[in-house]
């Protein structure tokens, strides 16, 4: 962090503490950050606090709101609907995220190798889905999956086969994974690609001269070098996955039998608050979900940094 050394402040007599110049600069700095923090506090910290507060109460038909301690949280973690939703997101995370990031990493490495023709256009084409709103992406894939005029169903029918049911109970999670993958491969690819471009070429020129092939270089030089960027994409994927809302809520309209109102934790919280009007329990669900996300992110970090930590402890 570069800071402007205030020459006046340094020259000023120590007994008076801060010089007027330094004071004026501090005042300016506080004024610069003030507008952001006004919105930050009112739109982030206050709602967060209010949500925590709400989650500690229960509303009854008789007697109105009463303090309930952690009862809502006990209820949440013993609520099959919530736990099943969390489990579903865990499955989603374990299957979809490696596929998405693996695909993104492959594309980034391939483009970075400079061996493909039209790399610039390819990069753009891969990225385009990110500019498509999640709602439109889901609507579009919903039609593509559909049995009536979806092209896949049409192809199957044309050769006289039964079209696969993409919107059935057993397959809809996979169909959602595909939508999210389609949307975010390009986005993650660009993050990884930027990190790859930032590796100084000297790092692997020597290896190339020694005859190491592109796969070897990718595995032992490039991958370790972009670990921070990979970690960033994983953490963003954790946050994105566990908050899944658009896909279930929109697919619910075309596949009502496959998606119930607690299909994902976030969709559950929404339905609790706006359909069941159980605001207190919904707040507890949302807060509990936040905790789960924090814990999973933390575990991801611990796993990726295990090696460094072991080294550090070993040297003690």
């Amino acid at each position, binding site marked *: 962090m570069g800071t402007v050394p205030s020459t006046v402040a340094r020259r000023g007599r120590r007994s008076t503490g801060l010089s007027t110049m330094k004071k004026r600069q501090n005042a300016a700095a506080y004024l610069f950050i003030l507008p952001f923090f006004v*919105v930050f506090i009112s739109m982030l910290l206050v709602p967060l606090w209010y949500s925590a507060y709400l989650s500690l109460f229960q509303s009854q038909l008789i007697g109105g709101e009463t303090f309930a301690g952690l009862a809502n949280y006990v209820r949440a973690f013993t609520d099959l609907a919530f736990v099943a939703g969390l489990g579903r997101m865990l499955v989603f995370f374990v299957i979809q995220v490696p596929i998405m990031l693996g695909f993104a990493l492959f594309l980034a490495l391939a483009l970075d*190798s400079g061996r493909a023709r039209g790399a610039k256009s390819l990069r753009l084409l891969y990225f385009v889905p990110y500019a498509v709103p999640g709602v439109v992406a889901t609507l579009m894939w919903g039609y593509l999956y559909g049995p009536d005029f979806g092209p896949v169903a*049409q192809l199957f029918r044309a050769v006289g086969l039964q079209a696969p049911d993409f919107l059935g109970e057993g397959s809809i999670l996979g169909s959602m994974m595909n939508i999210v993958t*389609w949307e975010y491969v390009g986005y993650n690819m660009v*993050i990884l690609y930027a990190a790859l471009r930032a590796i100084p070429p000297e790092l692997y020129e020597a290896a190339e001269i020694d005859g190491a092939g592109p796969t070897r270089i990718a595995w032992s030089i490039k991958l370790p070098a972009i670990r921070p960027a990979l970690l960033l994409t994983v953490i963003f994927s954790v946050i994105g996955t566990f*908050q899944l809302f658009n896909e279930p809520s929109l697919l619910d*309209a075309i596949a009502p039998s496959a998606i119930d109102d607690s299909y994902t934790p976030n969709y559950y919280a929404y339905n609790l608050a706006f359909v069941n009007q159980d605001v207190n329990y919904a707040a507890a669900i949302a807060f509990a979900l936040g905790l789960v996300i924090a814990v999973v992110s933390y575990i991801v970090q611990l796993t990726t940094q295990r090696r460094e930590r072991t080294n550090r402890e070993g040297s003690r």
Partner: protein
Amino acid sequence: MTSTQIDVAATAEAVVSAPPASPQSPRGRRRGPLLTVMLWICSLYFVLPLFWLFIASTKDNEDLFSTFGLWFGNRFALWENLRSVFTVQDGIYAQWALNTVIYAVVSATGATLLAAMAGYAFAKYEFPGSRALFSITLGAIMIPLTALALPTYLLFSKVGLTNTPWAIVIPSLVSPFGVFLMRVYAADAIPDSLIEAARVDGAGEFRIFGQVALRLLGPGLVTVFLFSLVATWNNYFLPLIMLNSSSLYPLTVGLAQQQAASAAGGGSQALFSTVITGSFVSVIPLVVAFLFLQRYWQSGLATGGVKA
């Protein structure tokens, strides 16, 4: 928790401070025809669905059901469909599009300005509490935004802000990641000596920011603006819970409701091609923006944005 946040920040910083990719590829040596073919085949996965969307928006309802999805139908009905997109329900689609533009542009402008001021202060001033405040800002990147939507809704309904444009714009002004990005950007882009020189010339702190700093922050500002714009443009959850008059809806909520209506059937089958064409039209502006502003996001996306 705190160490997690700092780690993420350090990670992101490592990515951000990466030098921009050089346009000519010094690493390209041999061309691999096999790799080229493979990569172009991969691109079909990303492009074909959108191609289908375009084809489908040129078809009338009958062709939609009876002709193959990935090629034109018997009749080219794009203009007809466009007319119906903009005339159905008294042309409410145009209203939704206008709302989307207003919410996204106002939010992104505000978020960018707030982030630029705060990021600049964190980068260029050493003031009591700056470290703690910056850590808190970083920690907020990890807060799942949807966890906030519900309490924000309840608070807004107490002060009568729900079902107004403010309900969309005000929460979208907070961009902790934008602050972080601007801090990293300002630290590199604005030389300390320049600020000192301006001070010696007697310029006030705010004039230095407005006349010296903002100009040097240009590319960083565009990046933050573009990604805030996308976040608000694509947001569905917040407007869904905040708004209930359809004249205030953005495109995302409006299209979702039209789709639900057409899926429910009830003689409104004609809506299928309208919803499809409407979806297609809604995709165009952002795709065009990304194409034209390539050079910004190609280096700037590295810093990412939190998925909406």
